[in-house]
């Protein structure tokens, strides 16, 4: 992205709000609805300022009624609007998944492509702050598994703004999954690496394109969201041991940029996938399969550092023990070398 305009460091929350505001200024069909997105500005800050600028018609606080308002977003999107709707915690999908995966994701297909559903479903993911197992999940694999919706997961504010702009302009439904620890909300613990320079002007980051955020020759780490920052820390630690580590930030799960992952692993010969979502039947397995079904001549068997297949526990000792982090990634690499 080349730009002559100024950049400032923004949190992901502010980057999301800025992208949304710019699209709302440019397109009267864009509007926001969800729980506490109005005067409060979203419990994770990602609609802050929108209510002041656009008012309660276009920035709508909803009842606690996800089935109705996400279903309504589908109906509005099919009728010429471009809703940006919030599911406050992704964990809440259980009360409204029908509207998401049976309507939002299928109406286009069931109409042979004639009915468009241009909406963004933004939802928070992730834990690490002892909110226990109904407010800390990632569920990336759950959403990416079900066809008909694009899924994006930014790791930093630059990508967050560009992906949000792209998502709002997309004629397909896009699930925008933002990690709470990256939002720049102090009370959730803040990953500093997510707060990066962001251009003031509107721009897009292409949905479906991964980014190589650190180049290396010895090992490929693939991750998304908060995991990218764990990978970058692990890469730094391994550099001190003399290893040259590449880090791929998936950025999108649907479409999945398998080419970038394969190209990286073709170069390094080693793969570790880092995912804060559950270990089994998820992103980590999909990434590994995408590589090995294409090329099995790796230097080492691929590995994954993912959340164990347990509900997320409350006690900090237990939760932190279970969460992926840089130390676990380094340990996984050491084990990989021992296994060779």
């Amino acid at each position, binding site marked *: 992205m080349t730009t002559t305009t100024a950049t400032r460091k923004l949190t992901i929350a502010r980057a999301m709000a800025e992208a949304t505001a710019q699209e709302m200024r440019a397109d009267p*069909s864009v*509007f926001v609805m969800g729980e506490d997105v109005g005067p409060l500005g979203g419990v994770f800050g990602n609609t802050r300022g929108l209510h002041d600028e656009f008012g309660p*018609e*276009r920035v709508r606080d*909803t*009842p606690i*009624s996800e*089935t*109705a*308002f*996400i*279903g*309504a*977003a*589908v*109906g*509005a*999107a*099919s*009728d*010429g*609007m471009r*809703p940006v709707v919030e599911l406050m915690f992704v964990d809440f999908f259980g*009360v409204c998944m*029908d*509207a998401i995966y*049976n*309507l939002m994701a*299928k*109406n*286009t*297909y*069931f*109409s*042979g*492509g*004639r*009915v*468009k559903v241009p909406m963004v479903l933004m939802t928070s993911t992730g834990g690490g702050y002892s909110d226990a197992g109904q407010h800390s999940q990632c569920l990336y694999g759950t959403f990416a598994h079900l*066809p*008909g919706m*694009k899924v994006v997961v930014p790791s930093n504010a630059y990508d967050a703004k560009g992906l949000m702009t792209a998502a709002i302009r997309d*004629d*397909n439904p896009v699930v925008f999954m933002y990690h709470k620890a990256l939002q720049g909300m102090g009370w959730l613990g803040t990953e500093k690496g997510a707060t990066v320079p962001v251009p003031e002007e509107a721009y897009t980051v292409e949905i479906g394109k991964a980014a190589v955020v650190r180049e290396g020759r010895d090992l490929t780490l693939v991750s998304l969201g908060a995991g990218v920052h764990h990978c970058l820390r692990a890469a730094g630690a391994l550099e001190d041991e003399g290893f040259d580590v590449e880090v791929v930030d998936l950025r999108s799960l649907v479409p999945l940029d398998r080419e970038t992952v394969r190209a990286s692993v073709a170069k390094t010969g080693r793969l570790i996938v880092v995912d804060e979502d559950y270990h089994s039947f998820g992103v980590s397995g999909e990434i590994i399969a995408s590589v090995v079904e294409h090329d099995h001549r790796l230097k080492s068997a691929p590995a994954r550092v993912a959340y164990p297949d347990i509900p997320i526990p409350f006690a900090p000792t237990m939760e932190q023990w279970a969460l992926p982090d840089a130390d676990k990634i380094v340990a996984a690499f050491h084990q990989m070398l021992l296994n060779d």
Partner: protein
Amino acid sequence: MQPTREQRLWMYRQMVTSRHLEERIETLYMEGKTPVFNMAKGPIPGEMHLSNGQEPCAAGVCAHLTADDVVTATHRPHHIAVAKGVDLDAMVAEIFGKATGLAGGRGGHMHLFDERVNFSCSGIIGEGLGPAVGAALSRKMQGKPGVAVAFLGEGAANQGAFHEALNLAAVWQLPVVFVIEDNAWGISVAKQASTAVPRNDRRAAAYGMPGHHVADNDVEGVFAAAGEAIARAREGQGPSLIEIETARLAGHFMGDGEDYRPEGEKDGLKARDPIPRYRAALLEAGLLDEAGDASLVAEARERVEAAIRFAQDSEFLPPEAALDTVFV
């Protein structure tokens, strides 16, 4: 609210057209499914939910709608699609799974979308209410004319989606009308065994909106209630709820043995078939004569036959077309 002569004949024509369509589908559906019933066989595979008996609901409501108005329908959608003006050729072709169908065969009979007349339906109970609320919100926000009507069965009134949608529509005072087709059965479970109140229109009070009840599957009663509710919505006065006592003259789906029905119920319902009743009423009122009826029926039948021929003569898409249109 009294319908004009033209409206009466229009409603009758929709009912006749829909019934003939269902009767033809019933025959065609059974091809290849005897002597052993196998849902996957024949020119129309899959589940089939026929609307025989429920035509007054569709005709009485859609008499007040134009192509600009939005309708979301149920898994039992054909009568509503006919009355809303869905392209009959493309609809029947979709029911056959053909390339010329509304979605090239990707949707089938429970997933009919015709954006030209703002019609859609879906296969899950209570699913269309949220989208209807959203379409109504869209019209209000855009300042565009048009109302939304969500059709649902009486069983759907026990779904969370029903209560959430009514609440949201009322809180935001949206131009939407919820129409319950009460055929008294949720597959095999009777309404009184599943629903805490005898009449769902009374549930409107919980959401501060008017509730209307239409007894005896009376198309003109539907017309009157819908007329009031839709006019109210068009005037920006908010949502309404209507419950219509209707009748499912077929099984829940084709192949349903209907052993759960009390002895004689089906015969009683057939004796009150709304189409011969309305025909008799129109004849008696002098709005229709025998010759006029014969020509109206013949015309409606020919329209259906033409759509069936169109579907039968159409090709299937190549199977790999299944990969297309996931995204646009």
